[in-house]
């Protein structure tokens, strides 16, 4: 018998054994299906998150800078007072005194339930200044943005994100209507254009923008800012703008050299780096979780193969008695394990892609199935077949034919 025919026969024997034990084979394959499917879905979610973070940060604009309140240092001890260190006056000073800064918007965010007639919707209320549309490069598609006068007078006016407008006014015509935010009536003056790109599982259009003065006074009841949003005059001027703002804010706070800042500044680039890092961490965690489920699947394969070897001890004895060598028996069982793993791998890839699509459509999460993750999952499945199939197969090949024939 030629080598090829011999291999062919042994592959066929393995396939027959699998088909003969359909229930058992199905259960074994199922373990691998879930493992591989998990890898595909998890990696797809991770990659999708990374991609959407990337695009939403890119959408901030490369001249974007964000100032956050920081910890207050008193007598060398870092304490958190619970009150923000950023004020309206800080924002005004930056606008007036930093030549590299083009636009400034005080900012404050609060989550709230919004009611309009019969409809209601939970969303984020964003307090902003009039320059906010220039900083975020985000315009109104209907009506207009609120005015300087609205901000000064803490007017109860709001600009709705597209998602909120659609949810509260399904028939359209949001501009001019009234919405109640925390029981405070707001007049809708505009609707933002759809931004489309969504953050990690979050819709950017699901927001309401109102004058920061109104948000602070009427909704939050405070006078400190959550953050200050800044746009440098040019992307190249970002570092200069940051140093101008830092020395201005330090001066305003009379901080001595050696004393820490009680605020933090992040450029778009830094935010992107940080976000990418956390997206990478998420991807890796998901990947590990999926890998563990693959290993569990592999142990399932080993378990079933061990049972199979024990159950078929007599068959192995018969084969050996009529001339099967150790390596023939080894390859027979190894092929069985590999075929089970590969079938599981293929089904898992199919299922994984399907589930990824379903998640993308139903949950609105961004998912990206990469050819790399498919190749990795399939390779891992094959490897699991070899690794976890080897021991049972080796055990089978080492059986003594006399003992095996006598086995009941």
């Amino acid at each position: 018998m030629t080598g090829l025919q011999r291999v062919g026969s042994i592959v066929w024997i393995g396939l027959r054994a699998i088909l003969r034990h359909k229930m058992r084979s199905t259960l074994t394959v199922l373990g691998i299906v879930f493992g591989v499917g998990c890898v595909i879905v998890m990696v797809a979610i991770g990659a999708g998150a990374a991609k959407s973070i990337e695009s939403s940060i890119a959408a901030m604009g490369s001249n974007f800078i964000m100032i956050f309140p920081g910890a207050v240092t008193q007598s060398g001890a870092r304490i958190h007072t619970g009150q923000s260190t950023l004020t309206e006056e800080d924002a005004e000073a930056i606008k007036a005194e930093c030549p590299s800064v083009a636009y400034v918007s005080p900012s404050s965010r609060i989550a709230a339930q919004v009611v309009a007639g019969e409809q209601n919707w939970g969303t984020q209320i964003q307090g902003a200044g009039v320059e906010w549309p220039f900083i975020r490069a985000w315009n109104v598609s209907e009506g207009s943005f609120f005015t300087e006068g609205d901000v000064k007078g803490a007017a109860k006016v709001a600009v709705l994100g597209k998602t909120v407008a659609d949810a509260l006014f399904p028939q359209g015509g949001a501009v001019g209507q009234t919405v109640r935010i925390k029981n405070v009536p707001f007049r809708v003056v505009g609707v933002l254009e759809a931004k489309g790109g969504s953050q990690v599982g979050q819709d950017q259009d699901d927001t309401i923008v109102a004058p920061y003065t109104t948000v602070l006074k009427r909704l939050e009841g405070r006078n400190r800012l959550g953050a200050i949003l800044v746009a440098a005059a040019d992307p190249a001027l970002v570092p200069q703008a940051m140093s101008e703002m830092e020395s201005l804010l330090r001066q305003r706070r009379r901080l001595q050299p050696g004393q820490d800042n009680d605020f933090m500044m992040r450029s778009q680039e830094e935010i992107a780096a940080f976000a990418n890092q956390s997206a990478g961490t998420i991807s890796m965690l998901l990947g590990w979780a999926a890998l563990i489920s693959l290993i569990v699947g592999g142990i399932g394969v080993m378990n079933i193969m061990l049972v199979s070897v024990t159950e078929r001890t007599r068959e192995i004895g018969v084969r050996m008695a009529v001339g099967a060598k150790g390596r023939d028996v080894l390859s027979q069982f190894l092929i069985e394990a590999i075929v089970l793993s590969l079938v599981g791998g293929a089904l898992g890839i199919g299922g994984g892609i399907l589930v990824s699509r379903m998640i993308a459509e139903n949950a609105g999460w961004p998912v990206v199935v990469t050819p790399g993750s498919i190749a990795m999952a399939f390779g891992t499945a094959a490897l699991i077949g070899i690794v976890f199939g080897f021991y049972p197969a080796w055990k089978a090949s080492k059986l003594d034919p006399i003992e095996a024939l006598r086995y009941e």
Partner: protein
Amino acid sequence: MPLVDMQKIVKIYASGENEVRALDGIDLAIEAGEFLAVMGPSGSGKSTLMNILGCLDRPTEGTYRLDGVDVSRMSANQRAEIRNSRLGFVYQNFNLLSRTTALENVELPLIYGQAPMSVRERRARAREIIHRVGLDGREKHTPAQLSGGQQQRVAIARALITDPPVILADEPTGNLDTRTSQDVMGIFERLNDEGKTVIIITHEHDIAEHARRAVTFRDGKIVQDGPVERRRRTQEAHP
């Protein structure tokens, strides 16, 4: 030169601190074309002899030449090749693969054989042998669908497929009724008439009577070796 030539064969099994001499200096020569019955009570060493004769096991001491080749010191793989090409096995419990058709059971040794053979050739050869043992039409039956006698015929067909010079049968009629036993023994007689060397282990005298020569074992030694008074009563039933 005898086909089977065993000299001073000793087989010792170590069981705990005791050692059991299952075979204690066996000299046995079997010529080509003989029909030999190996007799003896259980524990006499006849199964151990069968395992060594069948190259499933190696003797502790002594030499065993099969067709002039010393097989007593061969590796496991070499013995597998000898089992495949030179020996055919028939067992008391048939040892067929369950859920596998008669045809595929018969083909089995060819899968592990050395000579190149296509699937088609294997099929054709298996059909021919199945015809020879009188199982035409049962090729697609699995062992569960066959009677004991039919299963033993499948096993005999499997033993014959590589056309080995020696057929070894270990209590081949032990699980069969008297009538079927006689049929099966008829097949062995016919094979012997066609030139095969047949060696049968049995403890039943009327089975041994089909052989031409009987060797009796007791406590690992041959205590009796001589011709059988032949009755050959099944010959008319199976022309």
